């Protein structure tokens, strides 16, 4: 298959690859071997800081050396390209894509917003992002067996939810004679304010916590809205009544394992893929254990909102170094991974090894799926699904090894289409950035402090709300929103 060959003579390019999964480039990854063969482009590892687990640190070290390799792939590369691309550290890709990367071009033509989202404030695209596939990220999970025990229905509205949680709290659904149930829990305490959506508030606009969101073309911050206030007020009440894990702020990542395996937890909001797994792993321990997804209850306004979804474009990906002598070949190389062969390679691994073609579609081999090792880890090891690389993920790959209950849950959500549009982020120019840096972090700190204080009952949201809002004003939140807006308008306005 020679039409994928980019150059006739083998071309060697240097590369920096840094992602928590693979902190250096490995020339012996089977995926790479195949890619080399197909493209005739050979990458040579030139990663800096490959022993740190922090990609930004590695990136900064790399930049500080002043000698950039031809290709730079990294987690959170967007910040670097936004800042240093205009300074010449990275090559702008727009024209290169236009002329030499048909597959990439085709993808962006189809998804213009993603192109905008990945672009920098000067309008140039400096990196090819990793583009996840699949819609749903997190969903509500509840103990169906408990509902059954107590003779309750799956709650349909926020009020019903309140009743169900109260029943979980008071009626001893686990049947051990003690009211030790924790009705709502979360691994990340940030999933608690997520519940303000039940009162028409917002907690974030993307899969990043505490992010901005867009409403009617206007940038908004979730912790400044009326619905949020209402939600917090109610959450404080719930917390007080014991409907929420009293240790939600400190229990941390072990809470799901602990509360589920001890038969204590009733409901959570978490990733489909991982949460559904407990139905299998706890089946023996807790007879009848059934922890499955439920659709978002209707909020006070009658809407069902799934605030969280898989992000569409990641700040991870790769870029071309400013001193690269072969930009054309490089962009062609990038484009390879958007070609059907390349995309299959990066998603599924090597044909005949990890997958075979069944009905024209890649299908993981039985051996690969059942050898007891996590599929994703196995793929990382061979250089597939490498997120420091710009590529377009194929949800099919995940589907093939997803838990049946997860798929069921996603199916449930698919039916209703509860998703709301994601905020894809903005690229600010230097002036905007300065304003943002000056105010935002501190204002957010303040908001989070207040949020926790209100939920914990240390202060009252009603009483403090006005003072809170004016304090935010004083802390420059309005300026922040203003610069965000101008950046947003510039980026997505067209």
């Amino acid at each position, binding site marked *: 298959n020679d039409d994928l060959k980019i150059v006739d003579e083998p071309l060697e390019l240097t590369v920096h690859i840094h992602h*928590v*999964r693979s*902190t*250096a480039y490995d020339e012996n990854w089977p995926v790479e071997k195949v890619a080399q063969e197909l493209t005739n482009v050979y990458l040579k590892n030139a*990663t*800096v*800081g*490959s*022993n*740190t*687990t922090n990609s930004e*640190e590695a990136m*900064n*070290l790399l930049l*500080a*050396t002043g000698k950039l390799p031809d290709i730079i792939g990294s987690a959170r590369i967007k910040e670097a390209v936004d800042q240093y691309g205009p300074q010449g550290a990275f090559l702008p890709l727009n024209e290169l894509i236009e002329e030499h990367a048909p597959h990439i071009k085709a993808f962006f033509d189809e998804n213009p917003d993603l192109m905008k989202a990945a672009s920098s404030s000067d309008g140039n695209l400096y990196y090819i992002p990793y583009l996840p596939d699949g819609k749903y*990220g997190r969903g509500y999970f509840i103990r169906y067996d408990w509902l059954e025990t107590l003779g309750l229905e799956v709650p349909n509205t926020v009020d019903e939810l309140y009743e169900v949680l109260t029943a979980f709290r008071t009626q001893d659904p686990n049947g051990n004679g003690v009211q030790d149930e924790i009705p709502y829990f979360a*691994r990340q305490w940030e999933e608690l304010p997520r519940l303000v959506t039940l009162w028409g508030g917002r907690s974030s606009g993307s899969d990043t916590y505490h992010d901005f969101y867009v409403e009617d073309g206007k940038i908004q911050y979730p912790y400044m809205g009326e619905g949020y206030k209402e939600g917090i007020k109610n959450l404080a009440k719930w917390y007080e009544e014991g409907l929420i894990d009293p240790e939600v702020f400190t229990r941390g*990542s*072990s809470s799901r*394992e*602990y509360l589920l*395996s*001890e038969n204590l937890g009733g409901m959570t909001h978490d*990733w489909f*893929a*991982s*949460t*559904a*797994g*407990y139905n*299998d*792993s706890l089946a023996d321990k807790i007879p009848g254990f059934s922890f499955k997804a439920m659709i978002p209850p209707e909020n006070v306004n009658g809407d069902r909102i799934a605030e969280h979804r898989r992000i569409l474009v990641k700040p991870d990906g790769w870029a071309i170094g400013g001193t690269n002598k072969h930009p054309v070949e490089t962009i062609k190389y990038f484009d390879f991974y958007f070609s059907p062969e390349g995309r299959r390679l990066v998603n599924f691994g090597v044909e005949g090894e990890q997958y075979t073609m069944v009905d024209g579609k890649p299908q993981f081999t039985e051996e690969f799926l059942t050898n007891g090792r*996590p*599929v*994703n*880890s196995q793929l990382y090891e061979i250089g597939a699904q490498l997120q420091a690389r710009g590529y377009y993920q194929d949800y099919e790959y995940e589907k093939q090894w997803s*838990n049946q209950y997860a798929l069921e849950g996603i199916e449930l959500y698919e039916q209703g289409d509860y998703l709301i549009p994601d905020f894809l982020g903005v690229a600010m120019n230097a002036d905007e950035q300065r304003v943002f840096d000056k105010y935002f972090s501190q204002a957010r700190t303040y908001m989070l402090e207040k949020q926790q204080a209100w939920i914990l009952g240390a202060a009252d949201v009603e009483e403090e709300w006005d003072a809170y809002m004016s304090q935010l004003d004083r802390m420059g939140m309005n300026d922040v929103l203003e610069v965000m807006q101008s950046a947003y308008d510039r980026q997505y306005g067209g």
Partner: protein
Amino acid sequence: MKNMNLYSRGDKIFVFANMVLIALFTVAALYPFIYIAALSFSSGFAAAAGKVVLTPIELTLAAYERVMSEPAFWNSYKNTFIYTFGGTLTSLLIVIPGAYALSRPQLWGRRFWNLLVAFTMWFHAGMIPFFLNMRDLGLLDSYFGIIIGFAVNAFNIILLRNFFESIPTSFEEAARMDGANEWQVLWKVFVPLSKPAIATITLFCIVARWNGFFWAMVLLTDEGKIPLQVYLRHTIAELSDDEEFSSTLLSAPYSVETVTAAIIVCSIIPVLLIYPWVQKYFNKGILLGGVKE
């Protein structure tokens, strides 16, 4: 006064109360170790669920099997030993003469030199300049770079210098009368007489080397050269699954918690063995009998 029999009643009570307090503190200090030991022998799920308190839950050796089966683990263990021994040795070879020189009253500019050393305890260049400096010196990604780049530490110098200053001058004078030059005074008299202090800074060097990871992470590229602590971090990163998929490890006999704990247990054992060796030198009366005060 090694014997309790000659203690007064009040002193016996005092000593006893003291012993009880120490015992309590010791128990408290022992707990973290017991905890990670228990963790390392627990099942992955129990550990991840935070059920381990004092004893292993669902006892298993899986974590150790996982750790010990990795050649990278042993390699990093070896590297840690190289850094620790090489680093400590280099450190002592530079610090001991340096501290000695700084303790000499006849050294001109003594105040200045001491200040030059002490100054660095508060003014740090920062990561990037240090990294670039190491690069310019050609010390990136080498055993030697890690060993020499962190050989000296102002605190240790000051500690040792102070001890040297407290040694009665008579010993130095006696050695000089015996014909010793500076080096001989240092190595044949001061060093043997400073065993407690040297043991202390040796321990500090060893511990710093043993625990140090940050610069190894930054300066090393070759995975074959990383020390244990960096390996530990790699392992944690590797095992902490994406939060989306963490259930994929639910059924594994080990988890990131147990493997981490197992590595920590393995890494603590050598330092556990070092300390008693150091303690030997804390014995009283090193200067005893030498001079009539």
